[in-house]
């Protein structure tokens, strides 16, 4: 198991940028999580699919140039916005000296299709005598030149560099849920081992798009009909959630030198890959991860469970066996794939900073009442592959 050698030096979370269906910023999330409101869902726009739509945000406040906004697809806009919130929260926004040394790792999927163009081309291809030529000519004339940039996975990071000036380094990890886990694991390991002093790590997901619903429905992974809590039986499927989640990670020395106040400590991140085709392998890996991270000593577990068949139940059983109170990110924010683990860490950090766990979601069979919180384990079991866990603690 890759070991991030957490003991080398501490890694602090000194800034969090979080935007989702519940609002923007940590306080708005805490308010929404504790005031008893139901999850924000949209079951009609993409019916029969249920998604958690992004709260209305003013992108201008973090992405002032309209020209920049036009160069981005929504997932990039969401991510660039959340990254800006994180830098602001850490107190390093516009600080060129620090930003030029800030190491960035973004967990990203890809850009979205132009749905009208795709449908029009498919219709015309169906009656064409020369579909090869027609496809070429139509793509040349109908695709927007900027689309290719907006679609490239690494261009979320590129946009963050351009809009916010983060230029120390820029890496983009792909691979759905695992991308988020690995992004934080590597960023943490680099700081813990003195390879880096400060990093920006995060991801973004736009749930309100039919091409990703299409991809996930090819193998029947989507939640349809009406919202159900993630640990319901049978597994409800994935209710995607629009979100952006970014963390500023920092060495204590670097944070202290600039007078920054940590929100929480990121004590470690671990990842694994179960060979899921082997019966029982997934549950074994999750139990092993929970043992590695010391789940027994945690006050709560925040799960990034997806609701996907085959993946959710083995995780739920392993979590239940710990006897710890559990909260599922997707019960409140929906599932944000690459961004989900980072959103989970953000909620974990929020809980330890408040010293409390927010109430359980009514109707979820696994979420139970919790008490004071100073150490939270965050788990990630990808809808298809990849397991991970992290620990956040009060400082």
């Amino acid at each position, binding site marked *: *198991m*890759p070991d*991030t*050698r957490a003991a080398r030096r501490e890694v602090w979370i000194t800034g969090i940028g979080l935007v989702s269906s519940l609002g923007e910023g940590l306080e708005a999330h805490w308010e929404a999580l504790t005031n008893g409101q139901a999850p924000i869902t949209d079951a009609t726009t*993409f019916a029969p*699919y249920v998604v958690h739509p992004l709260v209305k945000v003013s992108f201008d406040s973090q992405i002032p140039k309209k020209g920049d906004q036009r160069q981005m697809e929504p997932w990039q806009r969401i991510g660039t916005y959340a990254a800006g919130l994180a830098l602001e929260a850490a107190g390093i926004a516009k600080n060129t000296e620090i930003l030029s040394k800030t190491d*960035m790792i973004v967990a990203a*999927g*890809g850009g979205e299709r132009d749905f009208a163009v*795709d*449908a029009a081309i*498919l*219709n015309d291809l*169906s009656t064409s005598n020369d579909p*090869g*030529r*027609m*496809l*070429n*000519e139509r*793509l*040349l004339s109908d695709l927007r030149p900027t*689309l*290719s*940039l907006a*679609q*490239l996975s*690494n*261009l979320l*990071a*590129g946009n963050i*560099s*351009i809009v916010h000036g983060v*230029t120390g*380094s*820029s*890496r*983009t*990890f*792909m*691979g*759905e849920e*695992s991308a988020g886990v690995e992004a934080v694991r590597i960023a943490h*390991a*680099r700081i813990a*081992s003195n390879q880096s002093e400060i990093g920006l790590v995060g991801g973004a997901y736009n749930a309100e798009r*039919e*091409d990703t619903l*299409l*991809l*996930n*429905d*090819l*193998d*029947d*992974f989507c939640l349809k009909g009406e919202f159900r809590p993630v640990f319901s039986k049978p597994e409800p499927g994935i209710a995607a959630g629009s979100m952006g989640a970014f963390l500023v990670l920092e060495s204590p020395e670097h944070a202290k030198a600039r007078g920054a106040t940590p929100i929480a400590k990121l004590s470690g991140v671990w990842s694994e*890959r179960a060979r899921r085709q082997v019966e029982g392998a997934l549950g074994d890996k999750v139990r092993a991860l929970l043992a590695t991270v010391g789940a027994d000593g945690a006050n709560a577990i925040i799960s990034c469970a997806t609701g996907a068949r085959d993946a959710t139940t083995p995780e739920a059983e392993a979590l239940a066996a710990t006897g710890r109170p559990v909260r599922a990110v997707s019960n409140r924010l929906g599932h944000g794939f690459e961004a989900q683990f980072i959103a989970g860490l953000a909620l974990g950090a929020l809980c330890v900073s408040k010293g409390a766990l927010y109430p359980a979601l009514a109707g979820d069979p696994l979420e139970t009442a919790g008490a004071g919180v100073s150490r939270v384990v965050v788990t990630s079991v990808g809808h*298809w*592959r*990849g397991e991970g866990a992290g620990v956040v603690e009060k400082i």
Partner: protein
Amino acid sequence: MTQAHLDKFGRPIVVVTGIGIVTSLGQGKDDNWRRLTAGESGIHTITRFPIAGMRTTIAGTVDFLFEGRVPAPDLSEKLATLAAEEAIAEASIGTPGDFPGPLFAAVPPVELEWPERRQIADAVGHYPIVYHDLLAAADSGKFRPWHERFLFGSVADRLADRFGTRGQPISLSTACASGATAIQLGVEAIRRGDTEVALSLGTDGSVHPEALIRFSLLSALTTANDKPAEAARPFAKNRDGFVMAEGAAALVLESYAHAVARGAKILGVLEGCGEMADNFHRTRSNPDGRPIIGCMRNAFADAGITPDDVDYINAHGTSTPENDRMEYVGMKGVFGEEKLARTPISSNKSMIGHTLTAAGAIEAAVSLLTIANGRIPPTINYNIPDPAIPLDVVPNVARDATVRRVISNSFGFGGQNVCLVLAGEPA
């Protein structure tokens, strides 16, 4: 581990013990090396799909692995598999299906392609359709395997299964610098002591109509379709865009101590990695060259060397007017005019085109072969020098030279720059 196994900063020295390469020139490092040093081009007219109506109709596709078209991730996976098999066999490490380290895989972004999209549309049962109709057809369960195939993590996941690499593989993209980033991640993991061994690779098999057209729309590709072998002209005055291409390279990275202890043949050293992001523009470099200069300097600093220690530059050299000029500006800033004039530089892309996600890995591999063989592959198609960027590009013919240390440059769309410093076996 003894002092001899640590670098001047006290970190474990990272060596290369296995190399694998596939490009449009052929499969395997021997074949590629022979053709690269013979100045051969792998660029040709595209036959994989109809090219009528396209502005650019040439590419460095790898056509000898499949009969006809397969989805891009299938080809990327196959290319990576062949490169990794070669590298692991050369390193003679682990047992088949049980590689004793993690996988860092530079893989191209994927999405459903037009042939698949058309099949789903046909399954709707009527035309005209709207996009939403495709979802019901997807829900039919007729196309289940495509979900996994078109996930971003799919290629690396199958490689992890096949080679038995440890833990969760990392799939990454830093655009045209991806292959170099994969190597950098492996170097860092070994230096941290997270692992003794890593498999780093870059692969790209994504020449398909929309990918080609997207680059056309950015005006990034050459349209010199008539003479494909002469279309990639890095640093020449008549360069007019890059040639999209496919390929893969894999390196087995290992701590020096680990390699020595098991008696492995050492093929070279990864002395340093540097990166610096450019925040000037999505496709253009900062005109002052600062990020490119900073990136190279960071690589030198990480390796603990100076520009005087470099014998050869393996250029990014895409053959676009912009890149090659900016790379010159950056190199001049780092090396100074005089040292730069004395330092040979060549672009492998003149022969194999721009293999995008794979380029950084392929060019690192070729850099190591350059050191090992004492022979510098040429920049072909260099017939009209550009007086604005005077360089010794090793024009058209390979050159014998003692090469102890190379810097390999990779600069990506989105401003992601990575430079690697590679050297021969430690004395």
